[in-house]
């Protein structure tokens, strides 16, 4: 899997991804700073993809174990992050509907 990605493509992807990130967050009301940070943090747990790749390509059980631990940490970040963000945002939602 690591073969198909050339340097220039990868750098283009990096550049465009960064620009997209800069563009997406413009003005944020202070109310949303905490939830936004928490949500973005959950997304950064996407390293779980790399952990999954590591597990599948690993040749030894020890390496698979490393991958599993990495996966565990990443999922802790992802699942916890999204749920906690949802809990925070649910409170704002209730206010709007009333």
């Amino acid at each position, binding site marked *: 899997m690591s073969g198909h990605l050339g340097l220039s493509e990868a750098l283009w992807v990096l550049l465009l991804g960064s620009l997209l990130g800069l563009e997406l*967050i413009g003005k944020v009301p202070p109310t949303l700073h905490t939830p936004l940070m*928490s949500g973005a943090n959950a997304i950064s747990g996407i390293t779980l993809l790399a952990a999954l790749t590591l597990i599948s390509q690993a040749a030894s059980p020890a390496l698979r174990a490393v991958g599993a631990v990495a996966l565990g940490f990443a999922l802790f*970040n992802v699942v*916890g*992050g999204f749920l*906690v963000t949802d*809990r925070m945002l649910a409170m704002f939602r209730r206010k709007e509907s009333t």
Partner: protein
Amino acid sequence: MGELTIELGAVLLLALGLKGLAKIRTARTANGLAALALALAVVGLLAQQGLAGWPWMLGGLAVGGGLGALLAFRVAMTSMPETVALFNGCGGVSSLLVALGAVQLPGGLNLLGQVSVLVSVLVGAITCSGSLVAVGKLKEWIGTPTWTLRPQRHAINILMAVACLVCCGLALKGFALALVPLTVLSLLLGVGLTLPVGGADMPVVISLLNSYSGVAAAAAGFVVGSELLIVAGAMVGAAGLILTQVMCTAMNRSLTSVLFGGALGVAGPTVAGSEGKETYTNVTSCSPEECALTLEAAERVVFVPGYGLAVAQAQHSLKELARLLEQHGVAVSYAIHPVAGRMPGHMNVLLAEADVPYDQLVEMDVINPDFPRTDVVIVLGANDVVNPRAKSDPASPLYGMPVLEVDQARSVFVVKRSLGSGYAGIRNDLFELPQTSMVFGDAKQVLQGLIQNLRELGVGKVPVASGKAS
């Protein structure tokens, strides 16, 4: 081709999610979209690479996901900042482990892969230890040791950074073992960079570390050759940087002074302890009865909630008191400082939890001109954000921080446990002003005392003017 469609769909959803999270109306749906995007990405990846090693995957999934969900449901809203920091640290650990593991993969890595491993280890480790220090600081398990504020710390940090680069160089030359000292040094560097930062500035640091964990994820994407991971990591990295900047602006702090200035900009020995509690002289204190009498006669009341209110779990009592006053015809609003609580927006979350109407929360710039015509201000567990010294005393570490000008109001009651100094450890002149009275006690008990006293005064029995119920 199917996998490509899934990957592109995931990127699109992530972008929509991140964008939607910045608007109140769409935030919750957007959060769901981002979660869906991650789930899609996992499905796409598994479709591509198969299920080899699935027991390990299932194990990591169940344990990590389970613990994350457990914590997310059980954690109190008051400790949200440290929870986010903890999650973030775990993301860093994950990138670090993936990178260390990828070195051992059969086939080896090309130069790009090797450099990416180093970046991932370095940034992942800094994110991890830095986030843990942030958790400790927010929990007040660790303070800011005075030795960390000496100027020499910059030299030590620079030395560690240089040593990290040397290790990176050695690793590229083929000494795989150099990754061990690199990991240790990066972890230490994370501690060295965050330990001197004052607790009040911690949110900015968490936001910055959040950006780092995006960078670490992007680097891990280079290592395993996943475009999706690179895009998502880069997006979070860039968005985190912008959010850090937005937060700095809201707190009127510059990023460099947060990172390199030490606790609230002073690197001298004056920060800790030297301005103790005993220095207050002209402090008047009063009982909840007297406070209730003043409230009963007021027309315009402003509450200034702070972290102390949240710690005492007194949001609900506050809401009850506000309702009672409204029934009595008193105009009630809440003044929200941008950094009330422990993080921008934290206090809004806490008050929303107690069902406080959205439109009664007034931001600092809007409410400041109204204080001169406010009868009563009640400060509940806030301290530094109402300190007039931030305006008057250029020598004060708080100088320049925008504050709520409660000293302009006719009378001010400060509900506080004791005369202890605030989070930033700075003496507050407000307590000594003639119009200020201290009401000592736990915020919740004081509020309930006020409610009881107001009821005894007959407030709330006869509904006065209607139409304030919204």
